[in-house]
């Protein structure tokens, strides 16, 4: 039987506010444990929460970016459960009246097609602390610095039909929230975490299968692997005559193993009710319009602008426009070197390959836009070939200075001296008599291709510094004169 996968996502996005959602404690990452957990975060008796206006502003920015209706009257509720990283015994969240209503996000797939994924809603809530399961004499250690960090939880409709679509959607959300500047996007620090709801059904049927939820994925790669594994598990189960149980699962990306966490039967009964400590939050049109005025350029609009302004392909523009730091790096390089096509190739090629290999962010690239533009300028004016340029880039990456300094210091300047090149070409032809005989005897339409055989020895003789265009001219002239 042919099966269809159905996927919906719940995405937790940590908002880049300076302070917590309900207290004035700092949210800075990496502080000593519990030094940023104040009386409100610790649920000390007699404390009262006061919501952070910036968290609302950021949530509204997201809502406007996905074309959603903004909840002008949103209500906080208590979601009751016991866990040591949740001091109050409830999470303050939104249920019936969230800040962001239904919206949609467009994704692009590898085959060039696009698809619209519906967003059910997005609500504001607080993050929990962290349990460290290391053994402190048989006890767990709790760090509550993260408790009370503002989150928006984005809930999609079950509109995705493959791991590819789910990952494209997750990447798009990452691109939107980082472009808006409402989240730092640092997935390894837990700034964006994904819960994936997965079910399968016979292709062509309408009814959804029983779903499982895999919680807390914090990498696109883990998400892709985990979906493939879970889809296979569910299909095997059903084809073997069994059935899928609705349950929460955990996936370990390092070992590539998933396990059941708890089944929904024993699942929590959260007993939501409106939080008596917080009044309904009302937001007026003036607030929404003021936020709209601050919206930066979004990835889709930027992609279209790159296509029109720089004549890039949709695909290249999509890659360069996806996050604002990369887009800025590309545009700055282009402005300085005056060649968008070359700038695009270098940013997507050498720069991103080096960044990936060293797991660096483009903002901390050892080769800045001045240096890259300087290198591109030397390719354009024929000082160096593309091949030598890669070598110079490597040296720049290692901190050996800018392109001009490296070209000068290492004598990498391209040989464009016709007299000198003619001499080398003569020598190479003389030293390769067999190749010459073969060339002279070949069909006229094959000669151009066969001429390439001489390029290797010539480049070798010039340590790769010969101007390839010039060598081609000289070589063609010499060989043709021997016919």
């Amino acid at each position, binding site marked *: 039987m042919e099966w269809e996968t159905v996927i919906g996502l719940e995405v937790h996005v940590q908002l880049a506010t300076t302070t917590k959602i309900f207290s004035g404690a700092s949210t800075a990452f990496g502080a000593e444990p519990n030094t940023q957990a104040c009386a409100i975060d610790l649920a000390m008796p007699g404390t009262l929460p006061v919501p*952070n206006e910036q968290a609302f502003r950021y949530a509204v920015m997201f809502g406007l970016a996905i074309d959603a209706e903004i909840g002008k009257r949103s209500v906080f509720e208590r979601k009751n459960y016991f866990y040591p990283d949740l001091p109050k015994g409830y999470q303050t969240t939104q249920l019936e009246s969230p800040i962001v209503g239904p919206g949609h996000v467009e994704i692009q797939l590898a085959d060039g097609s696009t698809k619209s994924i519906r967003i059910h809603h997005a609500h504001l809530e607080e993050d929990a602390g962290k349990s460290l399961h290391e053994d402190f004499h048989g006890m767990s250690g709790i760090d509550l610095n993260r408790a009370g960090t503002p989150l928006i939880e984005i809930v999609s409709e079950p509109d995705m039909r493959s791991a590819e679509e789910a990952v494209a959607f997750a990447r798009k959300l990452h691109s939107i929230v980082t472009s808006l500047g409402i989240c730092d996007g640092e997935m390894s620090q837990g700034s964006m975490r994904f819960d994936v709801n997965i079910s399968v059904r016979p292709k062509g049927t309408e009814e959804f299968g029983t779903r499982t939820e895999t919680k807390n994925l914090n990498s696109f790669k883990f998400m892709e692997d985990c979906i493939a594994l879970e889809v296979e598990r569910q299909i095997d189960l059903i084809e073997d005559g069994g059935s899928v149980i609705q349950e929460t699962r955990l996936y370990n990306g390092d070992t590539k193993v998933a396990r059941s966490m708890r089944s929904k039967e024993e699942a929590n009964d959260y007993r939501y009710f409106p939080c008596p400590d917080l009044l309904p939050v009302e937001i007026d049109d003036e607030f929404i319009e003021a936020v709209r005025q601050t919206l930066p350029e979004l990835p889709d609009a930027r992609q279209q602008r790159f296509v029109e302004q720089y004549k890039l392909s949709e695909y290249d523009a999509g890659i360069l426009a996806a996050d604002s730091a990369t887009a800025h790096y590309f545009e700055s390089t282009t402005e300085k070197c005056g060649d968008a096509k070359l700038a695009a190739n270098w940013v997507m090629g050498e720069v991103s390959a080096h960044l990936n290999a060293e797991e660096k962010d483009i903002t901390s690239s050892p080769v800045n836009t001045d240096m890259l533009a300087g290198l591109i300028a030397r390719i354009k004016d024929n000082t160096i070939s593309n091949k030598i340029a890669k070598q110079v880039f490597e040296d720049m990456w290692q901190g050996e200075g800018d392109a001009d300094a490296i070209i000068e210091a290492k004598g990498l300047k391209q040989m464009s001296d016709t007299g000198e090149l003619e001499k080398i070409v003569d020598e190479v032809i003389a030293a390769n008599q067999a190749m010459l005989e073969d060339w002279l005897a070949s069909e006229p339409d094959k000669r151009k291709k066969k001429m390439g055989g001489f390029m290797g020895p010539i480049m070798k003789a010039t340590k790769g510094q010969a101007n390839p265009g010039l060598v081609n001219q000289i070589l063609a002239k010499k060989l043709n004169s021997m016919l």
Partner: protein
Amino acid sequence: MDRSDIAKLAELARIEIADSTVDEVAKSITDVLTLVDQLQAADTDGIAPMAHPLDATQRLRADVVTESNRREDFQALAPAAEQGLYLVPKVID
């Protein structure tokens, strides 16, 4: 409310209810629910649910740090703390 409902509620609320008092608690809660039933008989069609008894809206605060580190004070109250962490019975998923 029967004994199993009370057991489930006690579990959810992490409250211990002595076996000898379960019937009494069940009766008390049933009395309260009977009152709620009477309230639910009222016609509320077209009336928006009330989120808060006060007819007011929430004031928001500026995103500025106002709290300082008082970890030593707070951890002095905790039953156990080590290396800056609060210690609790081992957490198992």
